[in-house]
């Protein structure tokens, strides 16, 4: 069976759910091989094998992670040349898409971004124009490079050999041109990651200030959800920018999205419109966000949201 390369998302060897989704998807297309870049393979290998990685290619070299994007594309281009895989799957994150773009140029391949499904004959489904149009597209030249949105496939275990081999790559001077001199972590709690979360609870200008986000966080915690924010809230400094949902923030597609005090500007919708179920709390019945709501309450979020949080607590107890 043809090999499918999967670039693994992980943090120091703790494998992200998106990687398990890609391995699961890859099994329906061919034989998954995991490409693991950076340190921590000893803690990751078992999980990768459990989710179907037949091979694990390990490239643990500080130069690969100490520079912006280009080294990973060079590594993947080398693997594409050596292994002639049937396709390369990468998570549709900001960085994943950039890696895919550079890899496509290097490998002489077409590239498709933001797929929400990929069929056995490598036809990708894209949801475009804010979810209003569904497109089937296919790479016609080279090794298809496809980035897949988080939450597109439910991860399923299917143990495989997980045969490890080390890969080394001689990076070009171009690949090391942009050097990461410092990594700055901004507050991050124990909540699930925004783009991967099954449930997202968001707050906007209606939350009124940083204190208001406590109400949002409590609801999120009652549901095991990630917290999101509109740009009005991140710009005001009420919540860190990496939690921004929308055009210039994260694109999320969770099972459940709860929008509180958010009006539903087109740039916000662009990031959450494909959520499966959408709940809205807003005091203005005319707010455009209600057009997307499966269930909406016109009311003050400071009354509705705490009541909801309490109610969830009671029902879960």
């Amino acid at each position: 069976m043809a090999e499918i390369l999967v670039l693994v998302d992980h943090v120091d060897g703790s494998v992200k759910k998106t990687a398990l989704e890609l391995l699961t998807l890859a099994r329906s297309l061919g034989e998954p091989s995991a490409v693991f870049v950076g340190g921590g393979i000893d803690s990751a290998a078992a999980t990768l094998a459990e989710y179907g990685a037949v091979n694990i290619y390990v490239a643990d070299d500080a130069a690969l992670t100490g520079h912006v994007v280009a080294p990973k594309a060079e590594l993947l281009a080398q693997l594409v040349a050596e292994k002639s895989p049937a396709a390369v799957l990468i998570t549709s994150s900001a960085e994943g898409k950039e890696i895919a773009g550079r890899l496509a140029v290097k490998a002489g391949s077409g590239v498709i971004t933001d797929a929400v499904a990929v069929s056995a004959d490598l036809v990708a489904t894209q949801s475009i124009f804010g979810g209003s149009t569904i497109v089937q597209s296919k790479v016609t030249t080279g090794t298809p490079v496809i980035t897949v949105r988080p939450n597109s496939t439910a991860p399923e275990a299917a143990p495989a050999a997980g045969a490890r081999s080390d890969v080394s790559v001689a990076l070009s001077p171009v690949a090391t041109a942009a050097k990461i001199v410092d990594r700055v972590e901004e507050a991050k709690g124990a909540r699930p990651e925004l783009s991967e979360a099954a449930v997202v609870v968001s707050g906007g200008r209606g939350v009124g200030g940083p204190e208001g986000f406590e109400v949002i966080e409590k609801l999120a915690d009652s549901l095991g959800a990630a917290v999101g924010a509109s740009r009005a809230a991140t710009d005001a400094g009420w919540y860190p920018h990496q939690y921004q949902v929308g055009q210039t923030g994260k694109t999320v597609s969770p099972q459940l999205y709860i929008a509180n005090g958010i009006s539903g500007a087109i740039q916000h919708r662009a990031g959450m419109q494909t959520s499966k179920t959408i709940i809205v709390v807003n005091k203005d019945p005319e707010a455009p966000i209600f057009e997307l709501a499966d269930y909406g309450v016109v009311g003050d979020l400071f009354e509705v949201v705490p009541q909801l949080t309490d109610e969830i607590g009671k029902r879960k107890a």
Partner: protein
Amino acid sequence: MKIVVCVKQVPDTWSEKKLDPTTKTLDRDSVDGVMNELDEYAVEEALKIAEATSGEVTVLSMGPAQSTETIRKALSMGADAGIHILDDGLAGSDAIATSLAISKVLEGRGADLIIFGSESTDARMSVIPAMVAERLGVAQLTFANKVEAPGDGSVKIHRLTDYGYDVVEASTPAVISVVEKINEPRYPSFKGIMAAKKKPVETITLADAGIEAATVGLGAAWSEVAEFAAAPARAAGTIVTDEGNGGVKIADYLSEQKFI
């Protein structure tokens, strides 16, 4: 410093975007075009850097004839000159061909910085800046919410990441893409709009740029749209007014849907 800003004309954010049934590409004729919002931030950043380093800013756009509006807008904000890559052979280009054409035209122009928006609002791929950096063999400094380019050949940015940001350093020439947190784009002044009319805009065809027609456009695309359809409309939801039990009602709905 010589700075080139790449700007794309896209359908107005609020317009209903459609694919053309024959070419299966974006129908750009039936909608009003505007400068891609994020590219306004790219223009602003370029102008700020040029002002601080006595540099010059050239704005570059590839697209159909009406893209001149977007080029003029950048000129009226203060850019010095424009380049318009205009050729019917480019219609329907994929990201591979778009990045090729932009790179070919940039080659040999000696830009120190090439600044992009980080994403277009129509196709939303967020790949062109990385692909142009790859093709030109220069440093990629993308998703910047802060840029320091003092004009001494060094450039430093804050690159937004999932966990916060990375501080990234490189030497010029470099490709930069910006996010909307970086600045507040200026409005063109009346004087700026008048001045823009007299600024030079160079039109470049495929032949001028030495690009083989067979490598770009719809026919040359390395990926193709096989079919498309309107997504099933979202069923109208239930909207209720809070009468003191709004939270309980949502909880009921969540229970029904098996979320709790």
